């Protein structure tokens, strides 16, 4: 099975979907000849032409608005937002139009739109190239929110997102674009939306994470298993909305202890919802306070390298939290 990087898997998914369905097209800033700022669409313009791979103005509102209109008219758009930090001008289009279209039209109109956006810090991107924005959108019924952590899942989930009849936000951990590698089978496969994945098995405690933090959580779990004999379940959530309560609770019922990791600001972050599910539906299985490890509540990921490191959860910090929780 060929090994590839996260970004290669994402490109391959788009390539296959473009080939499979002529309604699929890509639009975004520099996605055409340039192949995208991260090279996610590299070579696709040359392969599918300017009508399928469409460079957009520097206006995120319009990228998404064009996507919504095209989707309603029968096309299957993949909109790229160059950095998740830039998605905010499109917030109204996503939340007020895309998310509500099917509902307010009584099921007459649906929006088979995929919005791809690299998110997250740790790449020296500073305030406007490091943000995590998932919590804004996981609050909105009508949207689906997906964050892969492995090349296999990235490809399978993106294909599912493209084929989904509803708007899907597909956030990609940009720090892992080239640092995360994994085996991706040749040929057609998809990974279903709405299903979490048990990335690692252990009975001492459960670590819940997604994206880059899921990747780190597995590393941390391996480290504490090696050094301390602590065995963790690592639940890679994969799809944040809809949320896979079943898998989340199954792990918790086994271990009774939960550590939730996300790099977004801690307060009101996505992990709070996991904590709420565990404390409500898993109360009788609870053996320790539910623990969250997240970014500090500061306005942005700092540009300064030491400050960025201080902000970002990493395998070392996760391992420390695992040890603390295991000892409780």
């Amino acid at each position, binding site marked *: 099975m060929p090994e590839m990087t996260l970004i290669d898997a994402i490109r391959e998914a788009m390539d296959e979907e473009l080939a499979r369905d002529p309604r699929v097209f890509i639009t975004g800033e520099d996605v055409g000849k340039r192949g995208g700022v991260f090279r996610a669409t590299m070579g696709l313009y040359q392969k599918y032409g300017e009508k399928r791979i469409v460079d957009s103005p520097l206006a995120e509102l319009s990228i998404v608005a064009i996507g919504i209109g095209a989707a309603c008219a029968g096309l299957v758009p993949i909109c790229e937002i160059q950095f998740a930090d830039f998605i905010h001008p499109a917030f109204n289009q996503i939340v007020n139009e895309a998310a509500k279209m099917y509902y307010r039209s009584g099921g007459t109109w649906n929006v088979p739109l995929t919005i791809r956006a690299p998110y997250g810090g740790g790449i020296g991107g500073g305030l406007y190239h490091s943000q995590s924005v998932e919590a804004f959108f996981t609050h909105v019924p009508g949207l689906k929110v997906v964050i892969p952590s492995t090349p296999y899942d990235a490809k399978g989930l993106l294909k599912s997102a493209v084929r989904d009849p509803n708007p899907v936000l597909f956030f990609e951990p940009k720090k892992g674009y080239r640092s995360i590698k994994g085996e991706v089978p040749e040929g057609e496969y998809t990974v279903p939306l709405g299903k979490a994945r048990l990335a690692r098995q252990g009975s*001492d405690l459960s670590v819940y994470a997604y994206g880059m933090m899921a990747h780190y959580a597995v590393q941390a779990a391996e480290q504490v298993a090696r050094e301390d004999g602590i065995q963790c379940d690592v639940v890679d959530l994969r799809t944040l909305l809809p949320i896979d309560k079943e898998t989340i609770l199954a792990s918790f019922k086994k271990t*009774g202890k939960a550590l939730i990791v996300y790099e977004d600001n801690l307060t009101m972050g996505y992990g709070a919802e996991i904590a709420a599910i565990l404390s409500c539906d898993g*109360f*009788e*299985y*609870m*053996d*320790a306070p539910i623990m969250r490890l997240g970014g500090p509540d500061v306005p942005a990921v700092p540009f300064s390298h030491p400050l960025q490191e201080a902000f970002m959860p990493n395998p070392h910090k996760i391992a420390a939290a695992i040890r603390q929780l295991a*000892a*409780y």
Partner: protein
Amino acid sequence: MPTNVIMPQLGESVVEGTLSRWLKQVGERVEEFEPIAEVTTDKVDTEIPAPASGVVLAIYVAEGQTVERGTLLAVIGEPDEPVAATPSATPAQKHVTAPEPKPAQASPSAQRYSPVVARMAAEHNIDLTRIRGTGLGGRVTKKDVEAYLAAQKQPAAELAPWEQPGGGDLFKPTDEIFAAANAKPAASAPPPSAAPTQAPPSAALSGTLLPHSAMRRAIAKHMVESKLHTAPHVTTVFEVDMTRTMAHWKANEANFAAQGVRLTLTAYFVAAVVRAAQAQPILNSRWTDDGLFVPKVVNVGMAVALEDGLIVPVIKNAQDLNLIGLARQVTDLAARARAKQLKPDDLQGGTITLTNHGVSGSLLATPIINQPQSAIVGVGAVTKRPVVITDAEGNDLLAIRPMLYATLTFDHRVADGALGDAFMRVFKETLENWQ
């Protein structure tokens, strides 16, 4: 300057108390004399008042922990005042003992259980205090419970009768029946074990294990200590004609009631005990290795049966009280005992005890001495009985009289039979000649 909260002496024979509940937590403000904690001692539940106003800076004794008097329980002071993380530096700290067979509790958090641990304990009927916690601060974790269960693993729970293989010959394969019949007697069964090991009651009998209350444990300890380890008990029995006492009681009940006092026979018995104790102070004494301590006062302990045990409040300076004073004390102490509102002071200082076991119909009993006292008087039920009396002319007559049996059980180290009988003669005469 931080103020220490110390486990007080809650009774003279009471050397330890169980911290049953903290009423203030660390960080909470408390005013001087405001209750800061609830304490259960052998015989009384009470509250400890804060020795000073301030903020609770540290708590050193967990709920449920039993500590000796003088143990440092907590520290009160002003916020940010430095206090020791552990009380080891304080000379007042005494050796801490947890109720057996509990492992020592490492910290307050050891007394808190997570939902999963609580649920598993309920499901498997586990006494969590028996599990040594390996979690933070001695916390019992889910894994600790699992390990405990694995260690306790018994053969599966008893099957319903219809689930069990039949025991009769009808249910046995024929070859097994015949094999048994043909076997030589010597080889048929293994010899019975010479020293059968003591099986837990549940192994042989089905039933329910009722956990002991703190009071039950205390009573058990005191009874064993008094009767088996301290005092050689001896009992003398007297018969008392209650005619005059009963007549006085009937004549004065309403009169007392008008003064707001409920007159009971117990008041008369207490009065008779006082009279007898004054006549024979040796029986109102305490044995010590240095000598016999004879108090100047008669403080009569009065056994009161409770739903879940027994408690003995003390009528202080009973020698100074007349019948109405005694009746008032008897009624007040009994009512507060049943309402669990006795104060530690109410239980202290007894010099002799009265138990009116007749109220539950008993005719005769040999009670156990309430240490460190030397004697206990037991009175049975007053019953009408035919008795032979002699009239002024010397004629024997058969009469129906209200009678009771009264006993004095006393410490034979302290006194011999003649002294005990002398005591009881006064007791008897007091009641028989009540004016």
